[in-house]
């Protein structure tokens, strides 16, 4: 435990924060959704993002105990807790992405570390480095087809699936938490590019941005 330095990068103090899209809103604006918008984009900033590394067998029990959900052991698995605010996603055979409400991540990391004890694992806080975008609306899927190389047809991409794939000229973690909603986890430094791409490609569908 003590061999690894944990660090709460968040503060309770009233400090102005800037989401990864802050610059983009100023630069490119944010068209408000209208009745004609067939797709709506929404940023869910400041969530807690943890990368969890280790063997599935090692991690599963701790995750169940601390997070109350089963570790998705199968590729492309995405699991949410009962109220849907916490999720854990398979990224690779020894990597999972945990997303929780902002502010919970440090305590979660500590509890996981405690539960995992001396096992070989790693937890990295990446919350400042990525943000989550939501797409909703009847044209959301076609907008994704313009953007990602992965097959997003419902028969191939059911609810509860998540993949890392190519998005235009960057990468995205694409997830389907519910029938009508898609989530895109994007890296902070690529967020503006992703945003501009979505506005451009979504123009055809009257894309609106909810803020």
């Amino acid at each position, binding site marked *: 435990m*003590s*061999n*690894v*330095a944990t*660090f*709460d*990068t*968040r*503060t309770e*103090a009233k*400090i*102005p*924060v*800037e989401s*990864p899209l*802050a*610059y983009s809103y*100023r630069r490119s604006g944010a068209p408000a959704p209208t009745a*004609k918008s067939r797709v709506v984009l929404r940023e869910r*900033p*400041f969530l807690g993002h943890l*990368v969890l*590394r*280790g063997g599935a067998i090692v991690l599963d029990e701790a995750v169940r105990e601390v997070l109350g959900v089963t570790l998705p052991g199968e590729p492309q698995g995405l699991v949410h807790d009962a109220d849907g605010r916490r999720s854990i996603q398979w990224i690779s055979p020894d990597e999972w992405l945990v997303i929780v409400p902002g502010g919970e991540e440090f305590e979660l990391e500590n509890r996981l570390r405690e539960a995992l004890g001396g096992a*070989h*694992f*790693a*937890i*990295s*806080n*990446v*919350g*400042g*480095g*990525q943000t989550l975008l939501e797409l909703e609306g009847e044209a959301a899927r*076609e907008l994704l*087809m*313009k*953007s*990602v190389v992965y*097959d997003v*047809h419902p*028969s*191939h991409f059911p609810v509860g699936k998540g993949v890392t794939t190519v998005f*235009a*000229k*960057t990468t995205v973690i694409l997830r389907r938490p519910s029938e009508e909603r898609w989530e895109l986890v994007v*890296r*902070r*430094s*690529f967020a*503006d*590019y992703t945003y*501009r*791409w979505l506005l*451009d*490609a979504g*123009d*055809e569908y*009257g894309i609106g941005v909810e803020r």
Partner: protein
Amino acid sequence: MSQLNRLARGGRIDRSRKLSFTFNGQRYQGHAGDTLASALLANGVDIVNRSFKYSRPRGIVAAGAEEPNAVVQLGKTEAAQVPNVRATQQALYEGLEARSTNGWPNVQRDLMSLIGKLGGQFMPPGFYYKTFMAPASMWMTYEKYIRKSAGLGRSPMEKDPDLYDHLHQHCDVLVIGAGPAGLAAALAAGRSGARVILADEQEEMGGSLLDSRERLDDKPADAWVAETLEALAAMDNVTLLPRTTANGYHDHHFVTLHERRTEHLADTAPVKDGRRQARSRMHRVRAGRVVLATGAHERPLVYGNNDVPGNLLAGAVSTYIRRYGVVPGRKLVLSTSNDHAYRAALDWVEAGREVVAIADARANPDGELVEQARALGIRILPGSAVIEAKGESRVNAARVAKIDPDGFRVAGSAETLACDTIASSGGYSPVIHLASHTGGRPTWNDDILGFVPTLVKGVSAAGGAQGVYATGRVLADGVAAGARAAEEVGFAAAEVRLPQVAERRDGAAVALYQVPHEKPTLRAPKQFVDLQNDVTAAGIELATREGFESIEHVKRYTAMGFGTDQGKLGNINGMAIAARCLGRPIPEVGTTVFRPNYTPVTFGAIVGRHCRDLFDPERYTAMHQWHVEHGAEFEDVGQWKRPWYFPRKVDGKTETMHEAVARECRAVREAVGILDASTLGKIDIQGPDAREFLGRVYTNKWAKLAPGRVRYGLMCKDDGMVFDDGTTSCLGENHFLMTTTTGGAATVLEWLELWHQTEWPELEVYFNSVTDHWATMTITGPEARKLLAEVTDMDLDRESFKFMDWREGVVAGVPARVFRISFTGELAFEINVQANYALHVWETLFAHGEKYGLTPYGTETMHVLRAEKGFIIAGQDTDGSVTPEDLGMHWCVGYDKPFSWIGQRALSRPDTKRSDRKQLVGLRPKDPKVVLEEGAQIVFDPQHAIPMPMVGHVTSSYYSPTLDSGFALAVVKGGQQKMGESVYLPMADGQVHEAEIVSPIFVDPKGERQNV
């Protein structure tokens, strides 16, 4: 002008909608549903272009993708220009403006044609290889004139106003072509529940059924098309893509479908519902199975002057009459080798015009269609063919004679038949292009006198694409192919009822490609094989005489098949002619491999949205807004936009880079500066074997680095060459934070994973990128500590927070990790905070920093300051051929580490051991005012004649405000043993600079300033 060739009835055009358009400035009218070609024919326009080499007048020959002549320039405005549009594939729209691509002063009276007429005989294939050689110096002048005749259409000279996009499609079964085979296949696959895409290149789906004389279920063929399309449209699992051409078939069933979304509406995409729409869309399709239902192309016959306007394909004549209600002439002579082409004569008669005769190459034509023609009283000349067309700007007669195709000779005297149109048909070639894109060599099939595709697993061909032509059999073939494809990917076949089609009795066709003439080929009137490139039968014969014996050679020597039609019309005829000349069978001469695209595609469509602002991602740090607001000039570093320098406005004048950098440098050396260093790669390394791992991938030692300490590390590849560097901090006994160069971040992370996953999986360690999580700002300069103390209560005492220590604390109210490392040689603190807080921390530092003279600086100042200290930039001072020893960094190499680290072994190879390798040194110009050019080459002997032995080059060079002098880093052969010696740098302007080899550390050699 009236549409003199428009029939009063018939065709699929919308007669209620009249459209006006211009061609070569002349105004015409057509109808909705016309192509530009059908509208031109309706208006009696004979000459649509001039040929490339001989400037001969040319008219419309075909009705589809195989058209070689009717290639026009489209577009009203400069920006809207589209070169080389095939009129046969361009839907007519209101206000369309088109022009011929060749002909001067105009296409009717072209002066170049004089040259073509007179000079044509001096331009056999390959003539340019045989001349223009003397004198040698004149070639560029000759070429200038040759280039004047180059090209078809012209590029627009303004930016494209349109946008394009891509759609990534995935399906179980892709059906290409929506003629009878494709419709049937899509129906079968669709009914089975598979995800199906049906794509067809034409304005309307239906293919040959749209101009068929046959009845399906005793209804007109197009009624079945309409029914079927309706059924397909009703299926959720079927996507119909009309106006969509399958252009490229790539490996593993990846197919590009080019959908023309607005090209039938206008020359630029109209705005729709207030929004711009894509002019065209590329569907990048990954298919489970592919059914090629691409049909067949008719082959014209090759006879004398077969290029004069009025020579058409027989099938095209039928298409124009039946589909567009246009009859492209008054008096027709048909020359054919098969039954199917008789349709043209029957349709012509039904259109109320005269068929002069049908020359049939077969001795005893006897099929059903032949009987129908006989019954109409049409004169049929068996065993005959048109051997030559007469006329200049339009056919005025056909010379017809008995021929002996086997002996390749004219067997009787020729009869001249007055006519204005000659239709010809030499049979049909399956459209095998797509199947050969992935390397499948087509095979010759003697039964159908054509090549059939060789198919890889997962692809099937149906109908005409594999030489099945009778409609009933085509439909059955389509259903079978569609069902089989769906079944192969797991969908059970469903029942599909096929319409009843009466089987037509056709007589056997004969093989006829080039028609003999009374004169030998080399003396006969020109017999064109490839109309667009002016390749003649004589040209092919000549090529074979000169020793060009493979079809690839013939093609390249004559340019056959290299036009924008890619030889759809002429290649098989050309091959057959070459085979005849060589006395070998066609399959032995071989076929050529077709390459994408099937038909040309605009660059814009292939580029899609990846242009302009979205050409490549721009990566920004969390402080980017601030940099923009403070007037930063930016440098592209990888995909990042990094502030390069921050010019100030002084007295209304903006500083030059030199002035800004000098000011920024002084601020750091004398007060305090701040750099946004967020772009450096950051890798979080955890695990009990993390330390061991570092020891293997870095050149130096890591065994004893204590938590709280930071160390610089150098990374090599196993060839011993430096490829990245950076500092790594020990966060905990099993926990490290590695930094990499900005450009190296992704490469280094993959490098670590590579070694871990492939060579040392037993090491317990994990790597995660945290580059974006942390924002990094470096405050550096003598006042740095005072500034930092104002915004933190961390203990900044030089004893408790030493150089190369890191500590955690709160900076500006935000949890931070602070690293006392220095890339400037000054006292420095590198503050890392979670990126969402970064702008606040940055601005807070400025709120407190003014009194200390806090100055933002960019990469240029960073470079000057680090170079003054002799710190290298990997990729600037190294180039993949530099070892740690070459850099003089022996202190950073642990030769006695227990594990033979990456790069160690290579350092003892003969060449890496040499003492006269190029080594990093400092250079001080003799004239302090001189700033040496980066990249300047270094010599020991400036008097040496050219070629001069070069002994190194300048890698970094700047003006130093601190030294008030130019200075440089360089690599010099054996330089480390040559301190104090002079070297010379001969420049392009003739000046030779002299410089002294010195230590690369120019400022504070003992490193005291960073330790304060």
